[in-house]
Each structure stands twice: as C-alpha cells, then as structure tokens.
C-alpha cells in the first residue's frame, strides 16, 4: 500500500505541490485528476523518486526516503517518448527482464505473452520509430508490466492520442490493469479517462489535494464548485435557483444551498414541476440538448428524450433527476 503524508515539492522556491496526503491500497487504481499546471505530474515524479520531496512517502509502512528510483520497483509510463529508439519492440519489452537476468527462453515467453495482452502480437521486430502513437503506448505499457511492478505510475498516458483511439485504449487499459492486478497511479486532466480506468479519484488544484475517495463518491459529492465543474458538472447553482431545483428533485433543503447540476439533470417532462422557455436546441446522436431559461432558476442545460422536438421559444416543462445533481457543502 502506498502512503503519502504531507508531501511537498519545491522548485526554485515555488511550491509545485504542498501537503498532499493519501493512501492507495494494493490492487487499486488511483487517478489524480487536475487541470494543467496543478502539480499532478510533479506528484507522480516525486513518488517515482525523480524529484526531491519533503514529507513522507512510504510503501507498506516502509519509508522510501533515500531509496533511488531504480530500487523502488515502481514502473513509469509517460505520454510519449520513452521507448528506446535503438531497440526493437521485443527488445524494449524484454529490457527489464534482461536487467533481472531472466533466461532467454523465459524472456521470449514473457514478451510474447505481454504483447498478446496489449494486442500487439507479432510486432516483435518492429522499431519504435515505425509505430503509431497508440502502438507505442501499448508497447510502453507491456514493458512496464513486464516485471510485475509493485506500483505502475502513468503520466497522462493517453493524452498524445486522438479521441477515437483514446476511447478504445482507455477500456483496454482498465482491462489490462485489472487482469494483471496491478496497483496503479494515473495522472490525467481528462475526467472521462479517470472515471473509466480508476477505482479511486484524487482531485488536485494549484498544488493542493482538494478531494480524495472512491470514484463514485467523489463524483457524487464534489468538495467545492470548482471541483464540480472540473468533474463534468455543467453548472453550479446557488441560493434561490439552487433551492428551486433541489426541491424540484425532491430533496429538502434548508438555508444556503449550493447545487451542482449535470447537463442531464433536467429532463423534458410534461408533468414536471419546473417550467421555462427554450433558448437553444441541438440534436446529437444520443439525445436532444437544450438550454432553457427556467423560472426561478435562470439559464440551465436540459435534455430531451428522443422523439421530442421543442422549438426555440417554446415553453416546456422539466423535471429534475436527483441522481444527477449534487449538493455541495
């Protein structure tokens, strides 16, 4: 189990991350989510031993202070540029096995197994320079898994890939990691990626840890408005409008209320408690997306089921789904 206590990293007097504490149990995947420049990569590098850090980083209650990178047993994966350009794919994957002096036959077996696992069977003799971005990342993953590391550290592994490829690979990544039972720390700025791959979620902003916990929990109850927005909630409503929507969803509220709503929180419903005027309507392959000016609330997003076609300016009624909004404290 990885334990971080009050970890801070300083660059030239500026604090890149400060006071981060979290735990990562074995076999789980933690996603560290945050906008660019929030210090999440620095946190990862500190755990890997590539940056000098204050505070305590421990594995299974044994401190890692003073342990150099190559002795920690944590494998690293970057978004690009980490394969050894002068070695073939098979040689790249076999590299950590050679370091551990594993015999040639055993090496060949492991390499074939890993390449199959990541879907690149038969690519043994190719050179990294001839592979596409996605293929390179898969080779890097195979290489990282070759030695069954205690912890796999992934630094925005899918950021350099295009959207379609990313979607495909993100599922593969989760499947492979679960199948191997690897503990992993994934750093990303893409919340979809975080949701798909990870078990636990840590949100980092401006060097500080804002929230941490199982994905579903964090997702359901963001710690503050900025986090909520970052996690994909479309808007954050306060006071009156917040209370209106909350009551419409059947949640009783008292006093000052802050409510974060997803885009699909308000649904077109002729029997719904809210009413408003349609400002925008856009049809997407999955659903109808609307922006509605709701009485007592203001401008909010809403969705309509397939089959409903309100026009701009039309008055409609909406209901609020409790599962898709969140009360913030």
């Amino acid at each position: 189990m990885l334990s971080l206590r009050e970890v801070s990293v300083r660059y030239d007097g500026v604090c890149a991350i400060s006071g981060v504490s979290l735990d990562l149990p074995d076999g789980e995947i933690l996603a560290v989510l945050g906008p660019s420049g929030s210090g999440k990569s620095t946190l990862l590098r500190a755990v890997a031993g590539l940056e000098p850090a204050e505070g305590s980083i421990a594995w299974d209650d044994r401190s890692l202070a003073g342990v150099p990178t190559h002795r920690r047993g944590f494998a690293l994966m970057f978004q690009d540029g980490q394969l050894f350009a002068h070695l073939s794919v098979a040689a790249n994957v076999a590299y950590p096995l050679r370091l551990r002096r594993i015999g040639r036959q055993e090496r060949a077996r492991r390499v074939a197994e890993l390449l199959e696992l990541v879907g690149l069977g038969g690519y043994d003799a190719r050179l990294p320079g001839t592979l596409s971005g996605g293929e390179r990342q898969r080779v890097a993953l195979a290489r990282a898994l070759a030695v069954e590391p205690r912890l796999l550290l992934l630094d925005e592994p899918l950021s350099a890939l295009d959207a379609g490829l990313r979607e495909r690979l993100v599922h593969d990544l989760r499947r492979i990691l679960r199948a191997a039972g690897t503990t992993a720390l994934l750093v990303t700025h893409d919340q979809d990626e975080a949701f798909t791959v990870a078990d636990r979620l840590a949100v980092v902003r401006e060097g500080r840890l804002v929230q941490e916990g199982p994905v579903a929990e964090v997702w359901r109850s963001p710690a503050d408005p900025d986090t909520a927005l970052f996690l994909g909630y479309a808007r954050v409503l306060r006071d009156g409008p917040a209370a209106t929507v909350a009551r419409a969803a059947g949640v009783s509220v008292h006093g000052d209320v802050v409510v974060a709503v997803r885009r699909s929180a308000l649904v077109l419903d002729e029997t719904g408690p809210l009413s408003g005027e349609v400002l925008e309507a856009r049809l997407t392959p999955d659903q109808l997306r609307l922006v509605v000016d709701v009485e007592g609330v203001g401008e909010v997003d809403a969705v309509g089921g397939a089959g409903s076609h309100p026009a701009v300016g039309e008055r409609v009624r909406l209901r609020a789904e409790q599962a898709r909004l969140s009360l913030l404290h």
Partner: protein
Amino acid sequence: MERRHLPLTRGSSRNRGSSRNRGSSHNRGSSLSRPLGLLALAAIPVAVLGIFFLLPVIGMVGRGFRPEGRWDVPGVLAVLGRSQVQSALWFTVWSATVATAVTVLLGLPAAYVLHRLALPLRRLVRAALLVPFVLPTIVVGIAFRVLLTGPLSWLSIDGTPVAIIAGLVFFNVAVVVRAVGAAWESLDARPAEAAAALGAAPWTVFRTVTLPALRPAIVGAASVVFLFCATSFGIVLTLGGLRYRSVETEIYLLTTNLLDLQGAAALSLLQLVVVVLLLAVGARLRAVPPSGQRVPVRPHRPGVGDVPQLLLTALVLGFVALPVGALVVGSLRVEGRWSLANYRALTSTGSHQALLEPATTALDLSLRIAVDATLLALTLGLLVALSVTRRTHSRAERRLRGTLDALFMLPLGVSAVTLGFGFLVTLDRPPLDLRDSPWLVPIAQALVALPLVVRTLVPALAGIDDRQRQAAASLGAGPLRSAVVVEVPVLWRPLLAAAGFAFAASLGEFGATSFLARDENATLPVVIYRLIGHPGPMNYGMALAASCVLAATTAVVMLVVERLRVPSLGVL
C-alpha cells in the same frame, strides 16, 4: 483489436518518427528542378571550394603524377610500397586511433559534468577548454617539453609515443566535450527515467539508454578528432623528437625538403583515401533512428553518484591546464624573477629586431583576418548547410546531398603543405592569378573552419520539423519568408556557436597561413614562430607572452559566444 500495418520505409522515419508521412508533396514540380535547385543553393560554396581547395590540391597531386610532362602512375604507386611509407602509415593509423579513443573516453565524463550538472563557472570552463585549439603547435610542443623534462620528468614519457598522444588529446578534448555536451543537453530524459523506474541502475541506464542515444554525436565528434589527429604535424614533430614519422610529416619532408613530388602525391592520395573511408564509416555509424521531440532539460545539482565523473573531469581540466600554466609561468619569468617585461616587450620588435613589425600589430592583423575568415566561413557554411538539409525525395538527390556533405569535410583531411604549395602553383596565371589577392589568407582559414561550421549547423537545421515550414507556407508565407520565420530562430544560436569555433580556429591557424605570407604583415602565430626562431634574451619570453595573449583573446571571445548561447541542437 485493430492492428495497423503501415508500409513505411526507413527513409521517412527521419521525420519525427510519425507514421503519417505527410511530407511536402505539394511542391514537387518537375523531377529535375529539385536537384537543380539544390545545386544552385550550393553553387557558391562549391565554387569557392573548387577554386581554393580542389584546384590547388589537384594541381600539386597532378605534378606528382606527371613528373616530366608524362603520366607516371606506376611510379606514384611504387612509392606506396616503400617501407618508410608503410611504417609511417601504420604509425599514423594507430596513433590517431588511440588518441581518438582516449579523447572520447576522457571527453565523455567532462561533457556530462559541464553540460548536465549545474556547477558554478561552467561557462567559463567551457570557454577555457577551447584555448588549446588556438595555441600554435610549436608553442604547445615547447610547453609540453618543458613540463616533461622538468616537473614531470618522473613520468619519463618524453620522446615516446605517449607524449605524442598526450599532445593530441590536449588539443582535441574540447571537440568531444562540446559536441557530445551539446547533444547531451538536449537529450530527452524520459527514456532514461523510464529505464531507471524499470530497475536499471544509473550505470546501466548510461550504458543501455544514454550512450546509444548519443551515438550520432559521439561518432561525429570522433571522426573530426580522428582527422585532426591523423593530419597532425606539429605535435608529432615536436613531441616525438623526429623519431616517429606520420604520413603528414613524410609529406612535409618530401615536398619542402626533397622536392619529391611523386612521393608527396602518393601520400596525399593515401590521406584522401583514409579521409573518405573515415567519412563513409562515420556516416554509417551515425544513422540511428531519431528519438522523439527534444525537450530541453534543466541541469541538475550534482549528487553523490556524480563523484566519479567529477573526479575524471577535474583530471581532464588539470591535464589541459598544465601546459597552459607552464606557458603562463614561462611568460612571467625574466631571468629567474617574476616580471611583466615580456608583455611590455610585445609592443617592440623583439631582441635584435627579430620582427619586422611589433607583436601588437600582428595581433591586430590576426583579429581582423579572423573576423573576415569567420564571416566567410559562416556564409559558406550556411549555404552548404541549407542545401544539405533540404527535404529530398529521390535517391539521386539524397546521394547528391551526401556527397556535398562529405565534400566539405575534405579540407580537414588534406595536408597544409599540399594546399599551401598548391596555391602557389595553380593560382599563378590569369584568369586565376590570385596569388597577390588579400583574400587568400582569409579564404584558406575559412576553408579549414568550414567543416566545423557545417557540422554545427546541419543538425540544427535537420531538426526543424518540416510541418512548421508547411504551416508557414499554408499561412501565405513564400519560401523566403517561411525560411526566415521558421529557420532563423532555430539557427541563430548554433550560428553563434559556429562563429566562435571558426574564430578560434582561424586565430590559431598556422600551417596554410605561413605558406601564404605575402609581406611583412604577419599574423600572430607566424610572429610567435619567428620569435622562437631568433636567439635573443627576450625573444623566447616574448613568444610565450604572445601565446598567452592569443589564448586569452580566444577565451574571451568564446566566453562572449557562450553568454549568447543556450542549449543548442548542434553537434559542436
């Protein structure tokens, strides 16, 4: 799972390793116009090289092949069978190889320490490392001998090949440090970090990840150093005590003393063959698939693991500083006492009027000629680099480019004697009666500096992503404008680095310059040589003082260049 089988060829993997080979397929035009365009760009440098290098060399070698107006090829080849020639060839090859190996071994840790560790004064040290380049070999020879027969006589290597190799290493370690260091500075750190995380200890990371990535830079530097060592003349003579003969000293002897042009021609051919072989081998070894984007890395503070490299670097620096120190000490002593008299005497013409003009005049002249030569070398080198790094598609073009690249390395491999005499012999008739031209010395110096300039600019230009040019073009910029916008920002720093090298090389150039001296106006190295050759109480001390002034000037110029320079993408 979808698998992409992309039919890529080795050639296109140069462009960033991206599988999408969207090369500049737009401006294809006719298949002839591109090679022609290439030639047009390279026309001026090729013309200069042709007139001022190829013509003289061919003229001299031709005289050897036609001793009395008749072709005598067998006679020339028979020279190669002489036992002295064979032993000279053997000595040249093994001494150059050993010297290159030692230089690379010592230069690597120094390159690491001076380019990757954040140490104070490292710019100063890097600038000071170039001083050996500038010192006239005769002065270095004297400094070495003074050391080896004095304070270091317990080593008893005076007059042995070890002394020769030490001298060669002294001159050339700076080339390795700067070339490999520049490449190291811009090396992507991520493969190394990934390897460390996979369990590779620091030495294993260096051996399996860093060294292969540095191979192009190391090979480039090693080939330049080998050429310098194989054509070294002054060091072999002064430190070997005439007991060791290399191809270069044999050429000198045959041409200037025995006037055996046949023999000299045979040996010049031999030298050219060695050079061409070396360039071919070097080109082959350099062809490693490129790594990804270049991410400039900040130098980090030295740690405990860096101690061996620091020690080795201190050793190298000490080794380089000793002869220079001997020079400085020698220049400050007058009749056993410390004094600045030698320096003051530089404004005079020496004891017994050893000189025709004071040494300070010579320094002034040297600086101006060096400026001319540097500007020439930069212009020509830029044209060559531009033409050599155009994106090409046909094999013929690629061969042409490769030939051009190799052609401009040739001046490094040819004896100064052949070139110098060649000038006199071929440039004496109209329309090429250029013997009296004041441009002769700057051009000769520029030709010697040209390979260094080209080797610096080519990697920088080759590293520019073609997509940037295409982006500029798609935004409406014509070829010239997009060149300015895209290439100049990348180029001006390597240009400065190349300028510094060219300036240092031409300040210290002695071989060709001494052959081309036209009048009383001599450059400083020639003056130093004359001072040493005239007996008189002050002359020896003045020669040492003038050498120190030369060294200091170079160091200052290099420091200025260093200030303006940031981690470059160059190989020098």
